[in-house]
């Protein structure tokens, strides 16, 4: 069994106007030491996936169906079926998360060290005070912070340092999987570069599974072994990162890749995907990308394509994929 396998996960938000289909049939697996990048535009449901995995849904978030099997070696457990007090054992210890705008997730009136100790002492009540402090010092070193800064408050930290502290917090209970939701989006490129390298290094060192969520395909390219491209609540393509970048089959993947400017390579005209992403209250029938798709046929707007494995490890949901020997250089 892989470390995490997600099968047909469906979660809707209930609103006055009906259901917002934010997570609509998501399936993937994640192994130890593997990093999965989830890329998609805002509102496509990326963050909702992580909230569903951790079962941290807001009140109007309704879990519909699916399974999340977590297996740390002692046999698979379906996190979805667990009662809340059981689930708590897996949150933070099994799967932890670095939230979006993480810098604001530190409590300003406690020292950074105390906040991390709180997490450790909560999940490992047998730990002594001194052991916990030693663990925090170790975590600080791991994320590249000076352990002397443990007793300082968040406002004494720079943005990049706060981000490191939040990563230390996420690592405090030795998780098997870390979910990073746009952890560098608010940071400047030089700080972002350091955090990205740090995260990759730690993930490899601790052999964790990582789910990295971002809208920025360049960042995703740097951290991911495999990439899932998400559009309007669904995965449209999933493969190893080189395949996604060099031989994309889904027209949306291709569009996304070709609409991203780069500072390397030749300057070329960028591709524009016409139209706008659909409203998830009322997504179009058939393939949700069909109204914007250059390859769309009548079938695309009538029948929904299944997410199938077209070659080992390469999943695709498309009726008219881009030809394998495409024009793409």
């Amino acid at each position: 069994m892989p470390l995490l396998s997600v099968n047909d996960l469906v979660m809707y938000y209930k609103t006055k106007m009906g259901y917002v289909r934010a997570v609509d049939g998501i399936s993937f697996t994640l192994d130890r030491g593997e990093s999965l990048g989830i890329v998609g535009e805002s509102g496509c449901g990326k963050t909702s996936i992580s909230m569903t995995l951790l079962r941290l849904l807001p009140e109007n978030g309704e879990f519909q169906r699916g399974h999340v099997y977590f297996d740390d070696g002692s046999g698979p457990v379906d996190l979805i079926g667990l009662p809340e007090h059981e689930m708590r054992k897996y949150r933070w210890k099994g799967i932890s998360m670095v939230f979006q705008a993480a810098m604001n997730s530190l409590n300003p009136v406690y020292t950074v060290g105390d906040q991390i100790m709180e997490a450790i002492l909560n999940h490992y009540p047998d730990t002594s005070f001194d052991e916990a402090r030693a663990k925090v010092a170790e975590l600080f070193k791991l994320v590249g912070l000076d352990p002397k800064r443990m007793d300082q408050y968040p406002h004494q930290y720079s943005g990049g340092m706060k981000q490191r502290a939040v990563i230390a917090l996420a690592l405090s209970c030795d998780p098997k999987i870390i979910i990073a939701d746009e952890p560098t989006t608010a940071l400047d490129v030089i700080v972002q570069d350091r955090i990205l390298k740090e995260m990759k290094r730690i993930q490899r060192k601790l052999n964790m599974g990582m789910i990295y969520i971002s809208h920025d395909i360049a960042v995703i390219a740097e951290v991911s072994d495999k990439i899932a491209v998400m559009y309007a609540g669904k995965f449209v393509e999933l493969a190893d990162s080189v395949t996604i970048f060099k031989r994309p089959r889904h027209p949306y993947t291709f569009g996304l890749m070709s609409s991203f400017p780069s500072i390397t390579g030749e300057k070329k005209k960028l591709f524009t995907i016409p139209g706008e992403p659909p409203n998830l209250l009322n997504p179009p029938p058939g393939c949700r990308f069909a109204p914007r798709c250059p390859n769309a046929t009548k079938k695309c707007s009538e029948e929904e394509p299944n997410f199938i494995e077209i070659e080992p490890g390469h999943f695709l949901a498309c009726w008219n994929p881009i030809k394998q020997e495409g024009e793409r250089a």
Partner: protein
Amino acid sequence: MNGEYILEVRNLKKYFPADRGLFGRVRHFVHAVDEVSFEIKHGESLGLVGESGCGKTTTGKVIVKLEEPTSGELFLSGENVGKYVGPRKRDYHRKVQMIFQDPYESLNPRMTIFDIIAEPLNIHGIGNLKEREERVADLLQEVGLTPPSSFMWRYPHELSGGQRQRVAIARALVLNPTFVVADEPTSMLDVSIRTGIMDLMMELRQAHDMSYLYITHDLAVARYMCERIAVMYLGKIVEISETEELLSNPLHPYTRALLTAVPVPDPEFSRGEPEIMGSVTKPIDPPPRCRFYDRCPIRTKDCETSDHPPLVEILPGHFVACYEVEKRKQG
């Protein structure tokens, strides 16, 4: 003054009070923009690139006169605009417009799209209602919100982010400006929407013979949009050059670090390690030496004791503010 340039900025300074002592005396200043000079040719767009807090937005705001400069001069088509008052000042505001970063905040939610776009016409007393309606309809057509009649009477909350930014662009164009300051106009938008807005802005620039100051933190976007790029660090321009020259031959150590740090959308590409120390500070009463001194990998003893280096033309059209680069080029 010659006629080559649409806009010239000379020794522009903008200081903000950082804190006040007893009786409100200002003791410290943030040197947001410090002795910045550049010029923009007719029909050109200049990218102003830097990290957050480097003073790029302040520079833009001073140019459109949303902020009064502490000192320095601005020339529009060769004319000094610093002393403009009354009708001439109004004329300046007509010719120089700004597009803001966040289309969710820059449009008044209580006004219809027509009112938003026509407001500048109203303020400047141009046209009657019918003419304004025609003008607004033409503009909506031009920015790709078609058919105009279906957008004109709607409210901003009914539009998506990309559509709102198109409205903001239409509003900036309604007075036929010759110069537009665009402050990160695409950074709030999704990737698939962003390219459309960037292409639209380039088309409009050609069609209306405008010039841009394009402010962005994203070098890849600047590359796509701009003929030249100026790199700003803590209130100073440290390097300015033609876009491809800057990207292929960055000379200032800050530019080099910045370029190395930009992630590349290619999983097989491996970047180097940016050579830069420490992190950004705030330019509050900065010491007179080079602003980049504390983080510079190639600093020398001379740098510590000298003033901030001037921008020197190291290669044709390629200006760098660094003593070491200058020395190495000569030696």
